[in-house]
């Protein structure tokens, strides 16, 4: 790789660094650290893990966490399969309306999650949705139920895998795939043996981002779930509920759990990427 040239260090370099660090600290790091601090620290009492004990002994809270995990994992799996196939479609084939489809994929990032929730209710609502009553008579309840939560979660995290995979697919080009084909590999064999290993890190990164985003989804889920205690209340909804009910200690504890999982996700990617870069 070409050597990177660095601009000479001037006082401006240090001012810029200071500004960036201050910005990140004030906006991201300090508030998140405070959530962790408050989860463990109670005024007048000191450090305690009581709030966490409270979570793990509360069956309804455990149900909420389990529901969040299920929704996040299923939504991530859906977006993994869908994301990789649509990336291949967008990069490797030509069809009319391709640019429209490409623009449509970014929609979930730009639309407020609450709009996503309302839109899903309009289509799948059990009573007067466009498609909901038909599904309901077939015994499938979408809105106010787990499928709706999964759909809302999948919707908001849809672009993350695709946006990671597309640039890598474009970069690796088609020559390796053509070489594999000339050596006799079917398209399925070419995908598993050549294309997938080539986009592996992009897929891993996309999956972790999707998982992190799915665990934290709030707005869309709030609309479609109905927020029924012990049934369709997810962990993020439980945080809000606890906070509004003056159980701030409990709210911070659950929030801390959610944030920890996301931080662990990012750390995993960081380590994997460093290892991947060494191999290459």
């Amino acid at each position, binding site marked *: 790789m070409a050597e990177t040239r660095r601009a000479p260090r001037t006082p401006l370099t240090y001012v810029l660094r200071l500004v960036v660090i201050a910005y990140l600290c004030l906006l991201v790091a300090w508030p998140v650290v405070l959530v962790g601090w408050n989860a463990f620290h109670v005024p007048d009492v000191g450090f305690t893990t009581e709030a966490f004990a409270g979570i793990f002994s509360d069956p309804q809270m455990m149900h909420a966490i389990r529901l969040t995990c299920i929704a996040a994992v299923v939504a991530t799996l859906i977006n993994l399969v869908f994301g990789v196939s649509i990336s291949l479609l967008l990069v490797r084939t030509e069809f009319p309306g391709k640019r429209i489809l490409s623009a449509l994929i970014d929609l979930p990032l730009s639309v407020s999650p609450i709009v996503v929730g309302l839109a899903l209710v309009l289509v799948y609502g059990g009573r007067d949705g466009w498609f909901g009553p038909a599904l309901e008579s077939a015994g499938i309840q979408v809105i106010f139920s787990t499928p709706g939560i999964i759909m809302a979660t999948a919707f908001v995290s849809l672009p993350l895998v695709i946006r990671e995979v597309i640039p890598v697919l474009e970069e690796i080009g088609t*020559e390796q795939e053509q*070489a*594999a*084909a*000339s*050596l*006799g*590999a*079917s398209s399925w064999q070419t995908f598993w043996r050549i294309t997938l290993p080539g986009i592996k890190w992009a897929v891993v990164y996309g999956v972790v981002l999707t998982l992190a985003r799915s665990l934290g989804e709030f707005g869309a889920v709030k609309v479609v779930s109905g927020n029924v205690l012990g049934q369709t209340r997810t962990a993020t909804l439980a945080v809000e509920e606890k906070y509004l009910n003056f159980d701030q200690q409990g709210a911070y504890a659950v929030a801390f759990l959610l944030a920890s999982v996301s931080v662990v996700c990012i750390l995993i990617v960081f380590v994997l990427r460093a290892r991947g870069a060494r191999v290459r």
Partner: protein
Amino acid sequence: MSIEVTGVNKRYGDFVALEDINLTIPTGQLTALLGPSGGGKTTLLRVIAGLETPDSGSVVIEGNDATSLPVQKRNVGFVFQHYAAFKHLSVAKNVAFGLEIRKRPRAEIQAKVAELLELVHLSQFANRLPSQLSGGQRQRMALARALAIEPSVLLLDEPFGALDAKVRKELRDWLRRLHDEVHVTTVFVTHDQEEALEVADEIVVVNQGGIEQIGTPEQLYDEPANDFVMSFLGDVTTLGGALIRPHDVEVTPSPISEHSLEGTVSRVLRIGFEVRLTVLTDDGEVVTAELTRTHARALQLEEGVNVFVTPSPGAYTMPAPSPAA
């Protein structure tokens, strides 16, 4: 006859890449598709491989109609200009790829891979990744990978185009020797006439989607079918209204025949062992001549000297095309 291409046409929108190509490539030979960039030679190679579908026409490989066969079924070895190495697989795994797809027994694959790596002088690099190899080594690996499937034809698309001049020359000699050992019908694309003249048994000159001439290197160089082939295969100049190679122009201090033309040396350019002269004849023609360094020194040639230029006896000439054509 190993490869028969009949009536092949290929267009990209308005651009005609190939127009009514008819070509027969004999078994066991090393054939070069030579031509300028954008002339259609790579498209023709990819049509033979099955990587492009022609709009019309047929491709027959070893007596089997391959026109509608996908690339997987044609049993051709294809080598790309930029190697197309499988980056995540070791050198040995790259070479083994086609055999693993064919589900050959493991012992057979190992033996074959070892044999091929020996052939391309990469045995000690078997466990490296392609990124740890030089360009020339990567291309040899790609060649071994293509040979592993025992292809009926080996197709190479500008195989040395991405390498520097010295490695190019080495690999070119090496390819010729390899072909003499392996004897697989080989077609390679190149825009470098020196490469084609040096390596190929037969050269197909491709230009503007059509074939200009097919022949051995000697035939093409000595009896070019038209002015395009003549000027593409080597330097040309005009002398007395005819196209001629600069090394076939004799430069003398006095006239040696009735065809001698008088002129003055306007430029002397020395390139290594040879000297390139530009002579402006009294008729206003600009003639280029090539002489050896010693010859030029003996004639005491320098700018402004009066000389006579004459076609060498037996030199091939053809009428120069009119400027309008």
